[in-house]
């Protein structure tokens, strides 16, 4: 057996004047050069279209106040033209000194799914193709929390069904989110008040974040989203429920358009059994603090150290 030659010991081949590799390389470079010239001389119309497609002058996080205002105006004009509705887009920032938390009472949820539909309506999620940010999982009481055998597609005449309990899942707004770490363009990040948000104009639709999320919380717009004109919620936030284009990821934002105005998220308000609780974790008198301090609280997939802001508890 001959001693293998290491990479750094191999004699370097001096490039032949006109070896076969050279010819291929030159032809390739020549072709690329011609292509570059052709592109540069392209008619200005296509360049304009490209510019129009780019709404923002950069990543939302990097825009200054004036640029943000310009962006909001442009978005509003576009949405009004597209939908005919009097849509407003705001960019309300996080309230200083506030960190949101959410708690869901597993002993109360009956699996009626009203939260999923209210969320869809409030956040202008596409009806066709259907996107719902909340997924209500039916689980077996005997088995406990077992995602592998949970059923999101249960059909029932009445709920709750005997022997089952219900666990709605949406974005857990993790304090240590895996999704924001994997985004190749930093189109998703964690806001100071806790929500993980997405810049819909910067998202390239690679769906790495969807692969990273352990809760299956993110949704992708495989098709052009469509919401019937009469059902559109015109009060939108640029990082929340404004109309999204095809090809971007979206997810629960704790109704950023509501909570930054001091209101409860839509799911909290619609729940007929009062299973959902929301509030400011830093306020010692808030409902969320009461739950965490007094009730049996759990988080999903705790071993992954995502540290969710979404807590599940047993009210009884």
């Amino acid at each position, binding site marked *: 057996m001959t001693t293998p030659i290491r990479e750094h010991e191999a004699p370097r081949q001096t490039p032949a004047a006109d070896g076969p590799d050279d010819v291929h390389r030159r032809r390739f470079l020549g072709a690329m050069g011609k292509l570059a010239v052709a592109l540069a001389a392209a008619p200005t119309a296509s360049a304009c279209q490209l510019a129009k497609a780019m709404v923002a002058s950069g990543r939302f996080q990097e825009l200054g*106040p004036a640029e943000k*205002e310009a962006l*909001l105006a442009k978005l509003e004009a576009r949405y009004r033209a597209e939908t005919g509705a009097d849509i*407003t887009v*705001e*960019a*309300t*920032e996080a*309230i*200083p*000194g*506030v960190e949101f938390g959410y708690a869901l*009472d597993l002993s109360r949820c*009956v*699996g*009626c*799914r*009203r939260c*999923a*539909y*209210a969320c869809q*309506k*409030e956040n202008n999620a596409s009806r066709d*193709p*259907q996107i*719902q940010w909340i*997924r209500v999982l039916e689980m077996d009481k005997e088995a406990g929390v077992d995602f592998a055998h949970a059923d*999101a*597609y*249960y*059909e029932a005449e*009445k*709920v*709750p069904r005997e022997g089952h309990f219900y666990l709605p899942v949406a974005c857990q707004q993790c304090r240590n989110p895996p999704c924001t770490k994997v985004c190749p363009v930093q189109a998703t990040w964690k806001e100071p008040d806790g929500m993980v948000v997405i810049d819909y104009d910067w998202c390239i639709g690679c769906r790495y974040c969807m692969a990273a999320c352990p809760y299956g919380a993110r949704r992708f717009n495989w098709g052009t989203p469509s919401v019937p004109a009469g059902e559109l*919620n015109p*009060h939108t936030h640029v990082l929340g429920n404004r109309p999204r284009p095809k090809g971007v990821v979206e997810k629960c934002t704790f109704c950023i358009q*509501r909570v*930054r*105005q*001091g*209101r*409860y998220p*839509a799911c*909290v308000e619609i*729940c*007929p*059994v*009062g299973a959902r*609780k*929301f509030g*400011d974790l*830093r*306020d010692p*008198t*808030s*409902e969320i603090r*009461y*739950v965490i301090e007094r*009730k049996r609280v759990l988080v999903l997939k705790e071993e992954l150290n995502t540290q969710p802001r979404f807590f599940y508890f047993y*009210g009884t």
Partner: protein
Amino acid sequence: MRPGRPALLTIACAIVTGAAVGAGCGDEVPPAHAATSERARVRGAAAAATPPESADFEVPPPPFSEGIFPCSDCHEDMEVDRTRRKLEDEHTNIVLRHDAEHRWCLDCHDPTDRDKLRLASGERIDFDESYRLCGQCHGDKYRDWRAGVHGKRTGRWNGPKRYLLCAHCHDPHDPAFDPIEPLPAPIPPEAP
């Protein structure tokens, strides 16, 4: 700030005759308010972080059956019969499924003043304060409800809220929830 008893009385008196709660425990989501021009959209001069000293609470009126209140319209002139029995002449639509083995009407309804409920101490309370009666036995739920953790609340997480009396969700005579019809299942992904 968890309201103490006097505050609760004040709250109970602040009854808003507004929209009815509706079937169940309120299906509506209050509509969003338009972003006003005064509000700096980008800077976020929106909600305050510190909750107000006394959060305002709005409560719908007790869910009486049509025309049933005031009870004294009929009962003022009637003799009080404290014999525990099944009613035959009136209120036959009420079937008690709430500790029926041990309790009957006059354990909660005051025998001499039917416009009031009675506590175990004999104290008479208004129907607006019925939670005090429920809280006698269901103390843990009562404390949770006072904190906003039991039952449904709408409104602002840092401001005025609208909450419900026990009776708005739980029929006092048959408090256990019946199963409800769920909304349709999500559309499963298409098979390839």
